[in-house]
């Protein structure tokens, strides 16, 4: 629980004064011996005894059979030969370094975030964390599956730990750094997209987003630091901000095209080659992140007293929640090209992301609505008595608290979205399940479906279990009511 401790000023509870021996504390817990424990928990009645014996026989049979199968009969070649395809689809093997760099960026950001959030913690690498990291490293070295990539995995783990330690130092020296985490994740999302897609740097989304961010920063700094006495202050601020943004943006836009030699980049990999776990994760993350603007607006709309806003929000939410996801994804694939002007036909993956976003926005809206309902009226009244208007009250007081309350539900939603990306295999995207089914069509592995399905089931299970475990930790860490 200590890793994500965001409330450093929690005071330890004072130790109570010693009491007399008779009334001290809870009753003593006596430890049962193994025989007594078995009698209490397994053989406490004739029915339970029979049940235990039957269950033990069944479980024993099942476990032994499974173990025998796993270690002698099963043909694991389908997994070991095609590990790359499970992980990244038809992505060209000579470009696997790009997948590894993506992983590197993610681990780097994760480490940095960890370090910055836990900057007040005395010892970052305590015993359970060290044991966990050690176990992962051990698996990477021992498992035959990951052995070829052992160096890369160790580098990634090293990045995680190194950046966490660095993040702690940075966080202590520059407190503002913690506020830049979201910006960092935002930019690394586009960096990851660029690595996956390739193409010229100057024409990429990454560069577009970076120059927007950079010009906004320049404009803001300009308006904060420069003053022109001849003009009224509000005009100066707005004028300088606008001028800074526009000029910086234009310079950054045109510069790479005017200076020769800036047309460098990496090879473009077409989206039909993307696949495997990489695509699964990309789709899930895009779906949950992109649905936030729409989801929050819908939640506010549904809570609004204005009939038009509420009507539209309710209609959208109930319509989307009333139909299966697969029909929305299918609609995305079929109807989006029909409804757009002639000649515009978004990429298949973009259409899938639009479908996922529309779907998860409705569910996110309901989660956030639950959060909004949990905020006591007193918060709004207190904000209004401070003189905040309705917009500011919502933005600064109500929404942040509501989202914080909704975080466990949102993580749950992300887990189910992660599982739901398998539905895209029905509309033909090469995510992990479709990749597996394609592999099994070939004659060489046609009988090995149990092995392949068990392998990806294990991957899904590990991810989902880890996320729900993490969500419980976050929930505990964010629970600021505990005092």
């Amino acid at each position, binding site marked *: 629980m200590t890793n994500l401790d965001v409330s450093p000023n929690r005071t330890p509870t004072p130790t109570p004064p010693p009491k007399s021996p008779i009334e001290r504390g809870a009753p003593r817990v006596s430890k049962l011996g193994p025989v007594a424990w078995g009698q209490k928990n397994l053989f406490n009645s004739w029915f339970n005894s029979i049940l235990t014996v039957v269950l033990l026989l069944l479980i024993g049979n099942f476990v032994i059979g499974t173990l025998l199968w796993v270690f002698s009969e099963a043909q694991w070649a389908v997994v070991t030969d095609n590990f790359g395809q499970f992980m990244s689809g038809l992505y060209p093997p000579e470009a696997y370094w790009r997948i590894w760099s993506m992983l590197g960026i993610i681990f780097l950001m994760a480490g940095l975030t960890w370090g910055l959030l836990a900057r007040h913690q005395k010892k970052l690498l305590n015993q359970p964390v060290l044991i966990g990291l050690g176990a992962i490293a051990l698996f990477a070295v021992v498992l035959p599956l990951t052995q070829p990539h052992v160096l890369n995995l160790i580098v990634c783990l090293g990045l995680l730990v190194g950046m966490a330690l660095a993040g702690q130092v940075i966080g202590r020296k520059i407190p503002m750094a913690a506020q830049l985490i979201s910006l960092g994740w935002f930019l690394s999302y586009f960096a990851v997209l660029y690595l996956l897609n390739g193409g010229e740097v100057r024409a990429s989304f990454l560069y577009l987003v970076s120059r927007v961010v950079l010009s906004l920063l320049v404009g803001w700094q300009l308006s904060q630091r420069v003053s022109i006495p001849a003009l009224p202050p509000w005009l100066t601020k707005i004028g300088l901000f606008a001028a800074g943004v526009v000029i910086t943006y234009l310079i950054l836009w045109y510069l790479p095209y005017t200076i020769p030699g800036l047309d460098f980049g990496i090879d473009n990999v077409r989206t039909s080659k993307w696949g495997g776990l990489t695509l699964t994760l990309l789709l899930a993350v895009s779906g949950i992140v992109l649905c936030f603007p729409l989801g929050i607006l819908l939640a506010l709309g549904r809570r609004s007293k*204005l009939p038009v806003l509420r009507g539209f929000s309710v209609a959208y939410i109930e319509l989307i929640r*009333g139909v*299966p996801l697969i*029909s929305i994804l299918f609609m995305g694939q079929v*109807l989006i090209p*029909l409804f757009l002007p002639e000649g515009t036909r978004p990429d298949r993956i973009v259409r899938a992301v639009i479908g996922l976003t529309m779907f998860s926005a409705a569910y996110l809206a309901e989660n956030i609505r639950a959060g909004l309902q949990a905020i006591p009226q007193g918060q709004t009244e207190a904000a209004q008595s401070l003189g905040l208007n309705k917009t500011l009250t919502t933005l600064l007081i109500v929404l942040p608290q509501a989202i914080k309350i909704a975080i466990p539900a949102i993580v749950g939603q992300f887990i189910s979205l992660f599982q739901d990306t*398998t539905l895209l*295999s029905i509309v033909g995207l090469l995510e992990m399940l479709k990749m597996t089914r394609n592999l099994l069509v070939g004659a060489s592995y046609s009988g090995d479906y149990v092995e392949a399905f068990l392998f990806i089931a294990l991957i*899904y299970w590990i991810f989902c279990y880890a996320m729900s475990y993490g969500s419980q930790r976050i929930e505990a860490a964010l629970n600021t009511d505990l005092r």
Partner: protein
Amino acid sequence: MVQKTAKPLPRFKALLRDERFWQVALQIIVFIAVVATFYYLYGNLKAKGQAEFDLGFLQNTAGFPMSDNILGYQPTNSYAKIMQAGVINSFRVVIVGIILATIVGITAGVASFSTNWLLQKISRVYVGLMRNVPLLLQLIFWYTAVFRATPNADNQIVFPDEALSWVVISNKGIRLPGPSFPNELWVGIILLVLALLLGGLLWRSANMFRLGRFGAGIGGWLSRGVNVAIIVAVVITDYFLLFSNSAEDRLYFTGAVPAFVGSPQGLWVLALMGLAAGLVYVWKLRTQAMLTRGEDGNLLLGMMGAIALATAAIIIFAFGWKTPVIVPNGAEGGLPITMEYAAVVTGLTFYTGAFIAEIVRAGIQSVSRGQWEAARSLGLSNSKAMQLVVFPQSLQVIIPPLNSEFANLAKNSSLAIAVGYQDLYSVAYTSLNQSGRAIEVIAVMMGTYLLINLLISINMNQLNAVFQVKGR
């Protein structure tokens, strides 16, 4: 009274700061934006010549086969017919899935409170496993690794032996004992309905006894039931009339139903329904009299037992159950279940069952500890305490979230396409590819799923009303 002012600017500024102005303006802006977006999308659609919404194509010949349907659909029938067959297939999955998932879920949820440590842990492992693996993967696994991995017809599995052959399993499908629907079945169905009605009444009376007072009254109950019946009837009739242009379906609702009501059987049905309504009223008076006289409820219990036995007898004898018959290279008769159907139902059952188990667990945990302790101190055993005291009280917490779980099951049933079971979604998908009428097909499909969800929601609200504790 609006006065003319010399300085319009301050008024304008005041307007901008007026909340009421913004409330109206915001709504107008949003309305215009939404309408404009739709208009723009519609314009694009029109430019491609796809804008006219015409359900007439539903009369055209569908032309693709459907292996597993109970409507007798043939490839020469219309799109409307195959859509109906698809809806019925979806309903077959959803209804059976809901019943089985509820049984599995309640069993697993209750098992997590067992005093047997092993059983507890198995329940937890089951839930943790099912919830963290995607449903689609589970469905495909059930289909390919379990149901399709069965031996072929030459080596089919027969249970218990060749002579009795209750269950026959091969990779062609599963055969169970099934009803043979004799011609006199309508008598059985009427008796069954009557038995259910009487059972409901007796249960109601028993509740009156238990509480020692009269509830909302049987009239209120009937009106609730009639409400549901009307909604269901309207929904189904509308569906068939709107989306089926085939003559025989229209005939069914415009000709066959009145004809049935006018026929001797129909008159019997009407008479029996009238009789039932009379019984309702008489029974209410009788129970009131029993209560005021202070009689005990043993008569009621006996009658409930008799009704249960009668129901079982009707189900056994009226439907003409027959076991499958072994023939060379396979089996015939009985109730055939395709492997696709089996895989979809099994997958949905175990997946949804895990979620229901969590709901049940939370519900049981919500019952206060004192109830357990009170029950134990009355001398009830652990299982009796669960059955009689704790579980009934947890129902009012369990039922509302079950509604959304059942709705999820209905929506998830659309994944049947992945194993080749032809449900509504699968049929709509093929119809769209063949006819090219994207908007119409998607509208019909989504509308139908909305209706299914609406039906589930209505029924669950009724159920919820029963179990909510009143006046505490």
